[in-house]
């Protein structure tokens, strides 16, 4: 179970998360929806410990990430997660099979002689074969996402965090990824958080949905409830309307990408 309480995060005095309270139950898939810059990806990075919240706590299986101090403790905490990055973030210099098994070397005691066969198995799980020796630059966008997904599940994590899994893909490939997420959920019995603003995807894969706006949770509910939500902000977002209470506020609030990125760069360097 993931239990986030009062999570706050600012970049250069600009608040991005303003007190997030979310509980993700064992085995469920929670889709976090919301406009660009509302803090979805920032929250996901706080959960896995890539960013440290300024306030609040995130407890996973009784372990609070905000209380972990040493690199070894944080590494131990991260062992239980698989993370799918928005742009796949495959290592350009390594072939596909080494990308898939990269984490096994550091997260498990699996003998290296088994890496190649494990890579084949995990790639088969995401519907790919005979691409083990290709480089990431030789793959299409959809294939990269699937290889990244194979990498995320290679060490058999208990939790998978998806950051915009369908962004940049055509509708058919998006649906293939959605089916994969559902399929993996059934086969691996993992707990997942999916950050997305693709409503079709969110409705299909989520057991519950949480709407974020201006760094706060507006509503957490079953997808069928979200569809008929009476909250004006949620209503506007799920219907994809330009007119409504969100429009101007998002533009006023949206932190500049550079600033957020710089803030992350500073934090990464500080952590080191």
């Amino acid at each position, binding site marked *: 179970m993931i239990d986030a309480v009062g999570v706050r995060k600012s970049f250069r005095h600009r608040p991005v998360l303003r007190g997030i309270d979310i509980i993700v139950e064992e085995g469920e898939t929670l889709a976090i929806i919301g406009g660009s810059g509302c803090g979805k990806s920032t929250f996901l990075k706080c959960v896995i410990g890539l960013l440290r919240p300024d306030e609040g706590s995130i407890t996973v299986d009784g372990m609070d990430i905000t209380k972990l101090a040493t690199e070894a403790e944080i590494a131990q905490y991260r062992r239980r997660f698989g993370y799918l990055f928005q742009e796949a973030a*495959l290592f350009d210099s390594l072939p596909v099979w080494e990308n898939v098994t990269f*984490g096994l070397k*550091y997260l498990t005691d699996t003998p290296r002689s088994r890496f190649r066969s494990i890579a084949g198995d995990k790639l088969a799980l995401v519907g790919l074969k005979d691409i083990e020796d290709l480089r990431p630059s030789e793959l299409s966008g959809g294939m990269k996402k699937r290889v990244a997904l194979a990498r995320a599940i290679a060490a058999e994590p208990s939790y998978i965090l998806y950051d915009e899994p369908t962004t940049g893909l055509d509708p058919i490939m998006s649906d293939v990824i959605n089916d994969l997420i559902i399929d993996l959920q059934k086969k691996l019995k993992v707990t997942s958080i999916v950050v997305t603003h693709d409503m079709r995807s969110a409705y299909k894969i989520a057991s519950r949905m949480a709407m974020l706006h201006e760094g706060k949770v507006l509503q957490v509910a079953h997808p069928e409830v979200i569809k008929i939500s009476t909250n004006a902000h949620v209503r506007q977002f799920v219907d994809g309307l330009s007119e409504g209470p969100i429009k101007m506020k998002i533009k006023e609030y949206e932190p500049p990408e550079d600033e957020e990125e710089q803030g992350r760069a500073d934090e990464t360097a500080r952590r080191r």
Partner: protein
Amino acid sequence: MIGAFFGAGGRWFLETAESAGQFALMVRSAAFWFLRSRVEWRQVLIQMLRIGVESTPVVTMTTLFTGMVLALQTGASSNALLNEPFFVGTVVGFSMVMELGPVMSALVVSGRAGAAIAAELGTMKVTDQIDALYTLGTDPVRYLVIPRVLAFVVTLPILKIMADFTGIFGGWVVAYFKLGIPTNTYWHDIFDYMEVDNFMHGFLKSFVFAFAISFICCFKGLTTSGGAEGVGKSTTAAVVVSMTAVLILDYFATAVLVALGIT
């Protein structure tokens, strides 16, 4: 106007101090991981190939011509003063071994391999590959920085020795074919006066340069932000800062070695 000037100066000072602090933390982290984890030797070998082998042609070319220029200038000056090209080998040999070998090889390698490192790590940073390393159970300093630092520390001194030889060889080409100095005289001019300490002076400096270039270029790469433009900026900054650092550290390293009597 004055307020704005001091404001900008203050901001620059704070940013520089912050960067210096982050740099120190990265060096500390590298020391920690070096002592606490298994070195990624495969990565070290890959980087040695990239830094060492691939830099060899450009280091050879630049130092060959540097030695040739030195010989030509020394011969011309000596001819003008004494009507005879005296001590050409001595000047070329000592200049290359103590100063130009280590400095030229360091400058060339920071321009070539240092830029490549900053661009590679910068691209990894802006495409989330650095964050991916964290999520896959390792630390970028351990996986990326330490192999590059070790590769630099092994290859730069070797390149320095090569630079010494090619520079001295270039000097001999000019001394023999242009100035008419017999080969024996040229080599005697070098080895009659040169001692092991003279060699060690330049050799030890190349280790200092190796640490400086590798850490600076890795740091610039890992602190990249702002997409493709940011990668360009950090690559340029890596080359400028590491080249400047080589020249500044050259003075201080020389001062320390002189104080220790290694000259």
